[in-house]
């Protein structure tokens, strides 16, 4: 390629990339349409924290959460629209009210908790755990399920006292 045509090709490439990226709302998709919705959810949610099983919240909670990613527990967790739509669909179809998770029993239909630790089942089963135990070096935080439940990321809390 002659220098002039090289420069032209580079400029064209830069323009192509620059056009969508300058608008914050038009982030390019980070997920492949070929990936399963479950794998996309695990990749994106799991980039920052444990992959919380969809069954731990009702569908309305997931919808509210996915609608508020620009301010997600004090952080911006925005996704491109295509990836966000895939994840919202996966979470709501596998949500606890859809699958009949007994841990959501007692949750008022008008209540839309955003934290799993605000659901009645969680509060019931953790009532004997002290604040000191939660802040211990092993656990650190109420959101760190795996500290005590080895199978938590796979949705298994089997055999755990409750």
């Amino acid at each position, binding site marked *: 390629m002659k220098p002039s045509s090289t420069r032209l090709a580079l400029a064209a490439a830069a323009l192509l990339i620059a056009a969508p*990226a300058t608008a914050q709302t038009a982030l390019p998709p980070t997920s492949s349409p070929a990936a399963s919705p479950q794998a996309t959810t695990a990749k994106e949610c799991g980039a920052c924290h444990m992959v919380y099983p969809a069954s731990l919240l009702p569908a309305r909670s997931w919808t509210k959460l996915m609608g508020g990613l620009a301010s997600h527990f004090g952080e911006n967790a925005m*996704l491109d629209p295509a990836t966000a739509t895939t994840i919202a669909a996966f979470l709501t179809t596998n949500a606890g009210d859809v699958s009949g998770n007994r841990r959501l029993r007692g949750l008022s239909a008008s209540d839309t908790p955003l934290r799993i630790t605000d659901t009645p089942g969680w509060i019931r089963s953790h009532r004997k755990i002290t604040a000191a135990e939660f802040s211990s070096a092993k656990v650190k935080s109420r959101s760190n399920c795996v500290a005590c439940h080895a199978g938590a990321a796979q949705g298994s809390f089997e055999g755990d006292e409750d």
Partner: protein
Amino acid sequence: MTRFVILLPVLLAAAAAQAAPGPAQQAELDAYTGMAKAADPNFGGFSAARGQALFLATSKTARPDTPSCTTCHTTDPTKVGRTRAGKEIGPMALSAKPDRYSVMADTEKWFARNCDSVLMRACTPMEKGDFITFMTGQ
């Protein structure tokens, strides 16, 4: 032309001796150069020193839980960082994690999130290029 052909491998070898962006990182830098020039015709190139300053700065406009890039990435780019939820983050220095800054969609996603959390605004193309220039030299 002949001299250029002879010189090119020498230059490439010299660049490889230090930590340096590979083709994937260079493609991101080229894209940000295009955007920076579009924003400012007098754009004079990226600066690792400015990138380092951005990385280490404590923001005055941050959200309460994320005052700085170093809140999660630590002050040493070659070290493992941690999210607020406790999950490990691979090092930001290219020398410590060679697949850094190689997928534009991922890089753009994290700049969009993290600049907004720490600075409460989007980073400019120049800031993004400065940051990558600093980290690819680490």
